[in-house]
């Protein structure tokens, strides 16, 4: 059974998601002892320097236009159909893996689909996100995070992703029927997955409390600060040291770090990741 990570990258005018994916790939190569495969799904050009970080560069299939929706997520359901691996962990590009997460594979291998439903702030406290999850709370939906999820090639996972495709293509109808309160005017992948879970009654099949999938989310509103700043980087210091430890506010970050702000990924960070991979 082949295993690997997959990221979806669609550059916009303001964000170079391919560059983010490259940094994530470097972090995976440095930290993962057993499963360090990573493939990228993109229609953007990959600079030569980045290519060797990826096992496969996969074009987005059935592509008729560049993502012009608010979240540019309408193609992400396709990941199931193009992943080169039997078992896949899907990550957002604006993340860094900081520790070996082989235990995730061990756990998830017993399941068809597993979504992360637990996040932490940089203080390593488990937190809820009532600000950005208003729609989920108002409609009594589950709170899955597409930014970190697992699936294996199986009949059940195929059914799940086909339902997700339906939701993505008919999100207005789905929102009206499953998420009418605090109505979202765009197709967000997390909400699409929550609705898919409702349609398939998959609450216990794709989510559970023992699930080890978790990540550190740097959204300002969940950091436990009395005044939320526009940028978390203006509030707490951070450093990626020569051992690959990412320390934020003097706290060593664990497992998977979702930095959100594109400015975090400076050339210094990229260089450090390259050094850690012996590329300096």
């Amino acid at each position, binding site marked *: 059974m082949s295993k690997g990570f997959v990221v979806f990258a669609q550059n916009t005018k303001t964000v170079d998601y391919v560059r983010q994916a490259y940094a994530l790939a470097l972090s995976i190569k440095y930290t993962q002892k057993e499963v360090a495969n990573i493939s990228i799904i993109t229609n953007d050009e990959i600079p030569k320097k980045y290519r060797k970080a990826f096992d496969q560069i996969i074009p987005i299939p059935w592509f008729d236009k560049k993502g012009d929706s608010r979240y540019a997520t309408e193609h992400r359901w396709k990941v199931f159909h193009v992943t080169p691996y039997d078992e896949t962990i899907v990550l957002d590009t604006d993340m860094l893996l900081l520790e070996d997460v082989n235990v995730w594979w061990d756990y998830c291998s017993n399941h068809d689909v597993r979504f992360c439903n637990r996040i932490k702030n940089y203080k*390593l406290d488990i937190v809820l996100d009532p600000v950005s999850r208003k729609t989920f709370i108002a409609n009594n939906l589950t709170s899955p995070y597409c930014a970190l999820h697992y699936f294996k090639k199986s009949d059940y996972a195929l059914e799940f992703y086909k339902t997700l495709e339906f939701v993505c293509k008919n999100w207005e109808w789905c929102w009206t029927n499953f998420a009418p309160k605090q109505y979202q005017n765009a197709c967000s992948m997390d909400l699409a997955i929550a609705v898919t879970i409702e349609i398939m009654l998959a609450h216990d099949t794709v989510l559970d409390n023992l699930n080890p999938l978790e990540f550190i989310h740097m959204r300002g509103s969940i950091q*436990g*600060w009395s005044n939320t700043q526009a940028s978390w980087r203006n509030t707490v210091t951070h450093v990626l040291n020569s051992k690959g*430890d990412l320390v934020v*506010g*003097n*706290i*060593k970050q*664990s497992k998977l770090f979702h930095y959100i702000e594109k400015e975090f990924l400076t050339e210094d960070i990229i260089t450090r990741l390259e050094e850690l991979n012996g590329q300096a």
Partner: protein
Amino acid sequence: MTTGAVIFAQNNASLDYIKLAVFSAKQLIKHLDIPVSIVTDSPGWLSTGYPEHPFDHVISVDFKDTTQLKAFNDGALSLKKLEWKNFIRDQIYDLSPYDRTLVIDSDYIINSSILKPALSNQYDFQIYKRSMDLADWRPTNEFERINQYSIPFYWGTVFIFEKNEITKALFDLISYIKSNWLYFRNLYSIESTTFRNDFAFSIAIHIMNGKTNGGFAIELPGKMIYTKDKDFLISMEDTTMRFLVEKKDYHGEYTLTKTQDLDVHVMNKLSLSRYIDGGIGV
């Protein structure tokens, strides 16, 4: 393996910490039944003022003038700046005559045997992290993290350690933090210029944990229950303590509160001192 307790008592011009330590030691012996020693810079005053003191060992340390002042409330309406000598806590590893030592502040009043099981645990280091204010309306943020941007807060008020290489490293680290307080204060975004053992312990534990959530420091049983220096201790009878605690939105007014069979950190030392003298603490 010897087990005992140590209380620090360094007097200043306004407060007789030795008096508090004698009172606190008697409570400790009554409920935990272990020997108690005192670390003090005023052994003469101890033998003169309290010849019947209950201490197993009197550990003398050099008298040093300190320039560190701390604002102490005495109820909600009174504020005094007093000398605050808290610079020798890190030396406890060398000063303690016991293999396993319970260290308490002189204003920590033992009224239960809740710490007894912890004295026979094999852990290297046990300390309080969780706490509870008797005035349940007051914000507790300052005792959850050393500030809102930083690391978990641990109480240096009560802890138990066993002498070994690991705890030696901890106290060496605390000494290092104390010696470089300006640096660590800035590093951890601590606004107060006053050196606090709570902060030094919190930083040291954080470092011993590899700067992440770790299991180096085991939490003591229960919670650190405290009243702040804006409250008054008014009576104590057997294991029952009565306090006037600051009233929400009514500055200078108080609510009567009672504890029973609970150890309490009485931060209003002046009130505790008056109570010991036979007053009602107000």
